């Protein structure tokens, strides 16, 4: 019993010290929030996004912050669960009182967090939630990625017009709204273009065995297989498809984009294509600088999530700057109106200022992001072109650009 009580005291002490530790003192910084899946089933996407955001943050602070004010981003983990995402956003908005929120990768978790941001009138930018519903939550919710309908359409056009295939098969991830959405819009467009989707099979994220689905698909003799999944599974799918003697082209969306895909898929990825936001050989300075910086910082080639996180964060910084809320005069006014304010954030984080940021975000036009020239349309979605890449000898080759 004695030993037990000691441990209890230890625990209590640890908790108390954590509480004290969490009450850090206030500085004159601009605080944004980020929620993402840093642990749990889709941690790899959340971490990758965070790397991109972190890079953008370092860059802006190295350049002296936004109009001379350093930026801090409070990062909260949601364990890849929707209800945790809601809690994390509640914390960011109410406890940390952030000016804007960045996140999430998965549409399901963005949908859990978005209503909270909307209600509190805190602008939110999701880097990579592709489901149309997300930005329909309200006028404070934005995104910088493609929508499911667009990407499904791009690959259907590519399969029908460029590859000249007429019989397509689909292998989708049933637990993933991104995958289900892409499959749906691919089917619609492909049919409208005179093709036929002759077979559809599904798997669940985390699976490692796909031979049963592939054997079924093979028996139906399609010309092309559309696999709107993530690289975590697609590498293995390609490998097992080739093992089973399936030699037809495999095509997919931006979920494929990762060095891990090529590492896992290896030679099996010959004759495969996917749509993406940019090509690594794009000469635009934004792209080349990002790739070089990322390589220098993490010694890796980024996947699709990292540049989207990077762009989301940069658009956020840009909007804050354009909104003019950090203009000298505006800050002075803010302090005058709120004489109680002890820090910059307390003074400027008002509904009016957040509305100005929202308006600035909505007016984003031709922002030179890594993932393309980004224009926010009237539905708060990013409008940008997609490129189709081919994998050849373990390298990415540009095939064509498809505009919205």
């Amino acid at each position, binding site marked *: 019993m004695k030993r037990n009580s000691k441990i209890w005291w230890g625990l209590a002490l640890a908790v108390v010290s954590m509480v004290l530790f969490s009450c850090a003192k206030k500085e004159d910084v601009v605080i944004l929030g980020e929620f993402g899946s840093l642990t749990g089933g889709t941690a790899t996407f959340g971490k990758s996004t965070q790397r991109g955001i972190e890079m953008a943050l370092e860059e802006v602070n190295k350049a002296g912050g936004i109009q001379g004010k350093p930026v801090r981003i409070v990062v909260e983990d949601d364990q890849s669960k929707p209800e945790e995402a809601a809690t994390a956003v509640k914390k960011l908005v109410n406890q940390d009182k952030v000016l804007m929120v960045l996140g999430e990768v998965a549409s399901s978790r963005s949908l859990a967090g978005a209503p909270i941001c909307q209600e509190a009138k805190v602008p939110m930018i999701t880097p990579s939630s592709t489901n149309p519903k997300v930005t329909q939550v309200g006028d404070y919710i934005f995104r910088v990625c493609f929508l499911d309908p667009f990407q499904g359409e791009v690959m259907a056009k590519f399969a029908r017009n460029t590859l000249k295939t007429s019989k397509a098969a689909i292998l989708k991830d049933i637990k993933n709204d991104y995958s289900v959405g892409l499959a749906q819009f691919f089917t619609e467009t492909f049919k409208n273009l005179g093709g036929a989707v002759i077979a559809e099979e*599904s798997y669940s994220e985390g699976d*490692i065995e796909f031979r049963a689905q592939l*054997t*079924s698909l093979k028996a139906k003799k399609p010309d092309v297989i559309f696999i709107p999944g993530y690289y975590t599974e697609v590498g293995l799918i390609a490998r097992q498809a080739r093992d*089973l003697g399936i030699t037809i082209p495999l095509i997919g969306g931006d979920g494929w984009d990762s060095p891990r895909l090529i590492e*896992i898929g290896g030679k099996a990825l010959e004759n495969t294509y996917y749509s993406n936001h940019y090509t690594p050989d794009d000469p635009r300075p934004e792209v080349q600088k990002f790739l070089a910086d990322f390589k220098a910082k993490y010694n890796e080639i980024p996947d699709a999530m990292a540049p989207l996180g990077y762009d989301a964060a940069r658009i956020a910084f840009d909007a804050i700057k354009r909104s003019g809320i950090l203009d000298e005069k505006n800050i002075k006014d803010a302090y005058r109106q709120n004489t109680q304010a002890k820090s910059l954030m307390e003074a400027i984080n008002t509904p009016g200022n957040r509305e100005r940021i929202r308006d600035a975000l909505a007016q984003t036009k031709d922002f030179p992001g890594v993932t393309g020239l980004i224009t926010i349309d009237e539905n708060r979605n990013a409008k940008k072109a997609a490129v189709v890449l081919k994998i050849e000898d373990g390298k990415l080759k540009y095939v064509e650009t498809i505009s919205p």
Partner: protein
Amino acid sequence: MSEFLQQLINGIAWGSIYALIALGYTMVYGVLRLINFAHGDVYMVGAFAGFYAVKWLGLAQEPTIFGAVAVFLLSMGCCGILGFVIERGAYKPLRKAPRLTALITAIGVSLFLENAGQLIFGADPKFFPQIIAKKDVISSGGIILTNQQVIVLGVSLLLMVSLQLFVLKTKTGKAMRAVSFNREAASLMGISVDRIISITFVLGSALAGAAAILVGLTNPKIEPLMGIMPGIKAFVAAVLGGIGNIPGAMLGGMIMGIAEVMVVGYLSSTYRDAIAFAILILILLFKPSGLLGGFTGEKA
């Protein structure tokens, strides 16, 4: 017809993987009556041990038989040690506590390994190098069978038979059965119960390591959460076969594997997990203690 044969091959190959993981579950359960929730995560650690062993031995470029065996043994060894540590640290202090208590600790260990794995190894998936070069054994008439699939099936059968022989024929095996039957009586007969339980744990965990390497051959992708689903499914397979029963684990694994593949092939890939679990529940309703299960009157 060729499609059906191919699906059957897929099912047997996939089932042998479930069987391999289920063997470890069933060993531990048979002796300790504990659902070792961390088993799937020991399997994950085994895969990463193999991954780093391959790098360390420089086998990624030129696979050799000797190297493959070395990786296999190294991974088994790592898992064995990990199993020993887990048993001594987290389960042994709770031997007299209610069974559910130990189960929660097992869950704690499982969560710990998963989250520590994400921190140490990184959350992104990695490619498990091919330590045995792939060759097609059969590739005619639309049917393809690779040497790797044959190896997986062969090794799992071999492990099952040798395990069964070990339990039935050796003195330690006899002691295991005695501990499983009645722990108090066994200790009165001069059997060191703690030692036997440790041996069981080490063996069961080493089997997880073996499974990890073999899965790496046919499904070469590893990540820190890779143990969760196979762990659950293999546990289901062990229960299906009659938990605590070694041939039962093999049978249960095969049924799970073939059932999943056939459901995908001929019914619906969307409802795969639902149908697989429904089959399981149906079998349990007719055989409440599993297909080959001998344990009755067990208390929760």
